[in-house]
Structures are given as C-alpha cells and as structure tokens.
C-alpha cells in the first residue's frame, strides 16, 4: 500500500512539473520535407531555424512517427507540409500528441506548401486502391518544379511575415535574392537541357511528373506496375520492350530505391540508370533547393550525352 502511494505521489509530481518554455528568439520551423526546410532557411535567414522530419534520402511516404518528432513539433512555431496526403501515413498521430494548437491545420502556424502550386496527375474519375497507392488529390512530388519552388518560397515569406511582422523587410529581401538566383539558375538549367528536350525516360515511381514537364522530358513508363507495388517480372519485360521500341536512354530512380531492377532493365536495353536525390540532403552536394536541381539536372544531362 505504501509503495503504491509513493509511486502515485511520484507520478503526480512528474505530471505537475512545468512544461518546456516556448519562448525562442528565432522562429522555430518544422517541415516534413527537407526541401521546405531549405526554402524556409533561405527566406528566413538567421531569424529562423528550420528542421525537417524526413531526410532527403528516405522515401517521404514512409516516415516513422517517432516520439522524438513529437518533441520537435511541440516546440515549433510553424509547420510546413507538402499536403496532398503525402504525410497521411505518419503526421496525424504526431500532431495529435504534440500538444501544440498553433501548428494544427486550423492554426496560424500551419502552411500547406501545395497551395498555389501547379499540381499534376489529379485523378479524373473515381479513385480506388486497385490503382495502387494512388494519391487522390494529385501528385505530391510537386516541389521538383522550380517554378513551384518560387511559389512555395513566396508563401513561406508571407507566412513568416505574418508570424513575425518585425522581420518582414528581411524576409522580402531574402525572397527577392532567392528569386533572382533561381531565375539565373533556371536559365543555366534550360541551356543544359536544350539539346535534350523531348527525351524519353522511364522512372521507377511516378514521382517526377512536375520535373519532367518543366524540363521537357517525356516519361513513357514506370518500373512499378502500380504505385507502391515493386516491379514484377512480367512488368519488367513490358518495360524492356517499351524501352527498346521507343529507344528510351535513361531509367530515373531515387536514391532510396533498390537498383537491382533498374540495372536489370538497363542491361537489356542499353539505357543508363540515373540515381538522384529527390530532395535536399539526399546526397551531400544537394545542400539547398537550387543545388538539388544542379545535381539532378547535371546527372540526367550527363546520362543523355551532354556534359
């Protein structure tokens, strides 16, 4: 009995302990994707500190809802998400346990980065899981279009200015500098891709439609027979035949997939496998949003025969 009372008292004391303070000189930003954290740091400068839950080299659909993320969310002033149900597998229980009303979807510290962006592959008719792990609101890998990056950066600047009006001038200045660098970078990427516009590629997962549309690449097939289903022998054969028929020179895949099937398909067709990071930090060289495209554009252009 005494032992139980003692334990009960200890638990009561623990429950009554003061909670961690929220006050921070820098705005604390938590994002799901590393790309949003990079854009947030670019726009926010040293008025913010940003961290992402997903690393650039992991599949962003399958992030574990670790309790350590709850601590990050608990202290955050702003949460930036990709939306379009990309995070549906892990974010809701984290938000439910975060004890932070501001970053809930209805709170002032929540930003869905997809708002205002060009979203592709919105299903036209009825949707069912017979289609595989389909995204019912459109393809969520939209950050891979630099013009969407521009829109996201502007949205971040507006949100930061709303949360921190004192920093508005800084955010606008940083945004303008970023947009200028982006425009300059877009010109150099266009120049690099110019000889290869219309090039046909096969991708592992349907995660490059925005990238392909912007850079003028033609995605003719996927190694996954349906989204989320690993390549089957039958489907690999179909893809090989398709690639031979259409003379497809490149198989594009993310760093977090297994190369065995892409290498097999490439060996039968003479194509090159290009394994690139889809997000900032996916390889060390992709250290921010613009250098992510430098890495990806460079790798694809080299595989297509450029330099």
């Amino acid at each position, binding site marked *: 009995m005494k032992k*139980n009372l003692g*334990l*009960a008292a200890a*638990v*009561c004391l*623990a*429950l009554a*302990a*003061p*909670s*961690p303070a929220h006050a921070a000189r820098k705005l604390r930003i938590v994002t799901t994707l590393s790309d949003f954290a990079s854009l947030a740091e670019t726009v926010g400068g040293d008025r913010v500190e940003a961290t992402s839950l997903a*690393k650039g*080299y*992991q*599949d962003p659909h*399958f992030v*574990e*809802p*670790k*309790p*350590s993320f*709850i*601590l990050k969310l*608990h202290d955050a002033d702003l949460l930036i998400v990709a939306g379009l149900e990309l995070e*549906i*597998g*892990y974010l*809701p*229980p984290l938000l*439910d*346990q975060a*004890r*932070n*009303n501001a970053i*809930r979807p*209805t709170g002032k510290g929540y930003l869905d980065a997809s708002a205002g962006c060009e979203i592709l592959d919105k299903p036209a008719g009825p949707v069912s*899981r017979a289609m*595989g*792990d389909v995204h019912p609101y459109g393809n969520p890998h939209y950050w891979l279009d630099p013009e969407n990056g521009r829109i996201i950066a502007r949205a971040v600047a507006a949100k930061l200015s709303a949360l921190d009006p004192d920093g508005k001038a800084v955010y606008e200045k940083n945004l303008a500098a970023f947009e200028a660098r982006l425009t300059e970078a877009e010109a150099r990427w266009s120049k690099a891709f110019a000889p290869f516009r219309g090039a046909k590629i096969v991708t592992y997962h349907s995660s490059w439609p925005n990238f392909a549309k912007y850079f003028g690449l033609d995605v003719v097939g996927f190694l996954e027979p349906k989204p*989320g*289903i*690993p390549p089957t022998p039958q489907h690999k054969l179909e893809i090989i035949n398709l690639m031979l028929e259409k003379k497809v020179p490149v198989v594009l895949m993310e*760093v*977090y*997939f*297994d190369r065995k099937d892409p290498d097999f398909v490439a060996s039968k067709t003479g194509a090159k496998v290009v394994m690139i990071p889809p997000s900032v930090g996916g390889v060390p060289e992709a250290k921010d949003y613009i250098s992510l495209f430098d890495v990806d554009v460079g790798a694809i252009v080299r595989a297509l025969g450029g330099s």
Partner: protein
Amino acid sequence: MKIRTAALAALLGAVSGPAVAQTPQAGNVFNPKISVIGDFLGVTGHNAVDPMPSLALHEAELGLQAVVDPYARGDFFFTFGTESGDVGVEEAYITFLNLPGEFLLKAGKLKGAFGKLNTEHLHVRLFADTPLPMRNLLGGEDGIEDYGISVSRLIPAPAGIFLEATAQLFRGTSENLFEATSRSDVEPLFHLKGYGDLSESTNLEIGGSWTRGTNLQGSGFHTSVTGVDATLRWKPLRRGLYRSLLVRAELYLSDQESPAGTAHATGFYALAQYQLSRRWFAGYRHDESDHADDPSLHDRGDSLILTFWPSEFSQIRAQARRIVYDLGAAGTSTAAELILQLQFSIGAHGAHTF
C-alpha cells in the same frame, strides 16, 4: 430562338431537378473517416487446452474517426467477432488534444496504457495469436480494456529524450482480470514512457506500467500487475523500404490476492521481427508465463512467423507455434499449430501511435 432555348432549359431543369450549383452535399462533408479491417484466421494442428476454430473471421474492426470540434477529436472502434452476437466496443473515446497545462485527456472506453501489447489493436500485432503472459496475467486476448479517463503529459527531459507520463482511472472491470463490485472499486493505471533516438536509424523505447484492481475473487481482493517493456528499432533511412529490425520484450509481474493468500506470478515474451525485403518479414517470439492464480504452473511457447504484405493494405501471415501448457499434477499438454492469417483493410484507417 430565345423562347425555344428558354423552354429547353426549363425542360432540362425539370428533368434533372432544381437548378442549383454543384456543391458538395453538406450532409456528408463532416462524415468521419471510415475504415474496416478484417482479420481472418485458419488454424490447423493440435491444441487440447486453448483451441481456436479451424476457420474464422476472428475480428472485423470498424473504425469511425473525426474531429468533434475545435477542442477535441472522437474515435470509435467497434469489433465484430466470430460468434453471432459477438459485437463489442474495442475503444470509443474523446480526446482533448491540448488542455491547459499541456495535458492530453481521453475519456471513454479505452485500452489500458499498460506496456505495448495491451495498447495494440489486433491488426497492429506482429503475430496472429495472443502471447502467453497476456493470456495468463492480463485476462486474455483483449487485455486491460475498460471504461475510464486517461491523462497524459510530456515531462521535460534532457538530451532530446521523450518522456511521457500517463495516469488513468478505470471502472475496474476487465474481462477475466478485474471486476468492480462497487463504485469504489476503481482501477488506477500508471505508465511512464521513455524514448530516445540512438541514431537516425536506431531508437529505443522503455516503459514501466502499474495497475491495481479488484479481482474476480470479490470485493477486498485485489490484483496488481507491474509491467516493464523495451523496444529497440533499427531502420536505416536510405534502405528503409527494404530493411528493418524490431526487437521487443515485455515482462509482467502479477500479485493476485485470494482467501488463500497472495500469488506472485511472472510472465514475459520476447519478439524479434526482421524485414527480409520490401514486402517480406520474418519473426520469432518466445513466451513464458506462470498462471496468475498458481505460479507453480508455468506455460512456455515459441513461434516462427512469416508475413507478406501484398500492399500496405493487406497482409498474409503464417505462424508456426508450439506451446507447452503446464497442467500441474496432470502433467503437460503440448500444442503444435500452424496459423494462417489474412488481414485486409478498406477505407481511411490512419496511422497508430509508434
């Protein structure tokens, strides 16, 4: 021409209904997320002590989940079992997500926050059966599942350690374990959860639990159960789709009072699950448990488990298990069985807690 067009429009309007703009049906827009998960079992082999039916829809879980209002969410999980008339409320609770003082409060029918296995809905388990310590010391397949209130809070801890304390108060009625005979027979339950990232790929969770309620012997006789749980997870982020390891162990210590005295019983299970490839998982579990009322009786079991996920929404599992039931003076009874499990889900069942 204009009159003809107008007449045509009127005719079309009459045929298709009143001329209203395309709006989502207001009645449906607040519908909860609906999900149903089926758990089908086929069992073959020999078990004289605790046999399962040869073929059964072991459970169908219907989940209805939605936000109630700006302050709370509501979650309902109904289970439909094997026998006709076998309908239950697994959990049905309101959650206030952020009360003053950063308390998270749940109230309703809840699974007790005792250890890890007790908190898991059947379809989340990494095996098709119920480990011996839960069967013997926590009342059976459902464990501690009762009407009550749960309050939890994050405790400040250094070095990025996650520490959460939960205090629950239940009515004190849990199948085969507790039975409240009066309003004062309430059952308190406490749980402390500590979690830390050892690296970006590896993490460790350790928990301690304690509960006490009036047992089936009647008013004045209590059972208290203490639990310790540990879970180690490894999942290298870059290869996370293809490779992972989970190792978990839980220990239960039960003190059951009866007119004859207090029986101190112990039970534990240890589980390891290794991911072989994108969709294949292999597991092994070892169980041991005393009987709650007679600790001299000690059951043991071992299971080999193979699970295949055709997609995220279905699983096919084969479990080969061998259990030695201790019958005391009557000796032992050995069960050797093969369990085939099919689980399939439809609708929008969200993710569970880690």
